[in-house]
């Protein structure tokens, strides 16, 4: 192994360790709120309202929404971790510690992305465990489940990174989650099957990337989906590659970091 590669692996380990230390140190802000929110969803939507709704896609309403709610917490936490951590580093100027060091842009990006993925997964696991108090979970296809959750967490970590690079103030890091991410997630088939929608809105819904992620994950857990899994996974792989190289270009140019 070349000394350059070895140095970058140490640097990667350092960034990931620092990111995990950050979100575990402030766990009341990072790990606890999604747990409480999701318990409320389970109780109100799944239990109380869900009883009135009846079955959906051949499953109880609670069973139907659990995969979507797990995915929702993975999406918001992966995104939120990278956007707040990277923008926080820019705001405090501690990003300069990384910029003056010989760490490669790939290492920086992979480090932050892994931080986001790990937080997304940590929250996903917490929400999954909590869901077991409300319903019985089966896993229809473990490979698809793991692949989809990893790709989704990676995609939203990379999107969070882009948001943080362009953000100039704290408003800029809350605008996208509030006005883009939340509507896309709520309209992404977390709480309903698009088969309930009129044909026109079904077609419109297919343009929502979150719909493909949620349904792919639901397929992995329940074995039912509103979309074609192969297409969705291909889309996610392509999106990951495009976003990754776009982020590397941003880092190399020093946008938002160098003058």
């Amino acid at each position: 192994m070349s000394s350059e590669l070895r140095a970058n692996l140490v640097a990667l380990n350092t960034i990931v360790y620092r990111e995990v230390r950050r979100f575990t140190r402030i766990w009341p802000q990072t790990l606890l709120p999604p747990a409480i929110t999701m318990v409320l969803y389970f109780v109100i939507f799944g239990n109380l309202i869900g009883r009135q709704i009846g079955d959906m896609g051949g499953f109880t309403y609670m069973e139907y929404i659990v995969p979507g709610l797990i995915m929702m917490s993975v999406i918001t936490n992966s995104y939120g971790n990278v956007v707040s951590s990277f923008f926080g580093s820019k705001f405090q100027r501690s990003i300069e510690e990384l910029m003056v060091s010989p760490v490669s842009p790939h290492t920086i990006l992979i480090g932050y992305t892994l931080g986001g993925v790990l937080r997304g997964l940590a929250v996903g696991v917490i929400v999954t465990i909590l869901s077991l108090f409300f319903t019985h979970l089966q896993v229809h296809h473990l490979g698809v489940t793991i692949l989809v959750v990893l790709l989704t967490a990676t995609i939203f970590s990379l999107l969070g990174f882009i948001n943080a690079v362009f953000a100039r103030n704290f408003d800029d890091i809350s605008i996208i989650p509030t006005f883009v991410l939340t509507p896309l997630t709520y309209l992404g088939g977390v709480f309903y099957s698009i088969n309930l929608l009129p044909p026109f809105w079904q077609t419109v819904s297919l343009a929502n990337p979150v719909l493909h992620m949620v349904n792919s994950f639901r397929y992995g857990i329940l074995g039912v989906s509103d979309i074609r899994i192969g297409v969705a996974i291909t889309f996610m792989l392509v999106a990951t590659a495009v976003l990754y190289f776009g982020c590397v270009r941003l880092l190399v140019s020093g946008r938002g970091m160098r003058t």
Partner: protein
Amino acid sequence: MSSALSIRQLTKTYGNGFQALKGIDLDVAEGDFFALLGPNGAGKSTTIGILSTLVNKTSGTVSIFGNDLDRQPAALKRSIGVVPQEFNFNQFEKTFDIVVTQAGYYGIPAKVAKERAEKYLTQLGLWDKRDVPSRSLSGGMKRRLMIARALIHEPRLLILDEPTAGVDIELRRSMWSFLTELNEQGITIILTTHYLEEAEQLCRHIGIIDHGTIVENTSMRALLSTLHVETFLLDLKRELAQAPTLLGYPCKLISPHTLEVQVDKEAGVTALFGQLALQNIEVQSLRNKSNRLEELFVSLVEKNLAKVAV
């Protein structure tokens, strides 16, 4: 002696059109203690920003220990440590973690990083603050933390941008002796400062930058030798009603007990004391009116200002 830093025709024009650097050339020899001085907005921090890769240059070349900024950026970065003007560490991290994390960015394994962190935090008087969040450190401690962080990968060139700004005199002097020790160990040091006394005490060579151009680049000794006249303040034992006549020494009475005298280097002070003794004027003590470098600095910058205005 080989070159630590070589800058050729370096320019920087910011997005708003402001030309901060107008094609500067600068060389710093290995092992030197170099002062880069200049008024606010002269281009010092832009130059340091380019060296530390936080500012993109517009044109020109930069080489540090033979590593070109464009072609070997990683090797160049490994060879320098930067102490910026503003605090730029995570205010929520502990002192020890900040230094060890920085070592990790340079690929230094955790065990070695922890040993070095202990060494530098101890040397800089911060070891007992290792578990304290950095935000609770005093201003002087934060500056020392940035020095420890800059040294953790043991760079050959240390660049300090106003390291003693806002630091009390006692601490400033202890930082001077620490930097002198580092320089004696072979680390090349480039320092910007507004305290000209600091530059005069520490540095062997000096570059003065103003309006994006280098207006002077020479040894401290050579620069100071260009100063022909020094102004002394004499504290008198008995008060005087008016300034005495001292042949070859223009003087004026500042207060009944204080006489300001201009002394030409060629003339020296021996003849001055002879004349004072003849007039029965006893001197209790004498001191320089101002820092010698300060006088030169002001005159060079004023000269350049006149040139720029033309």
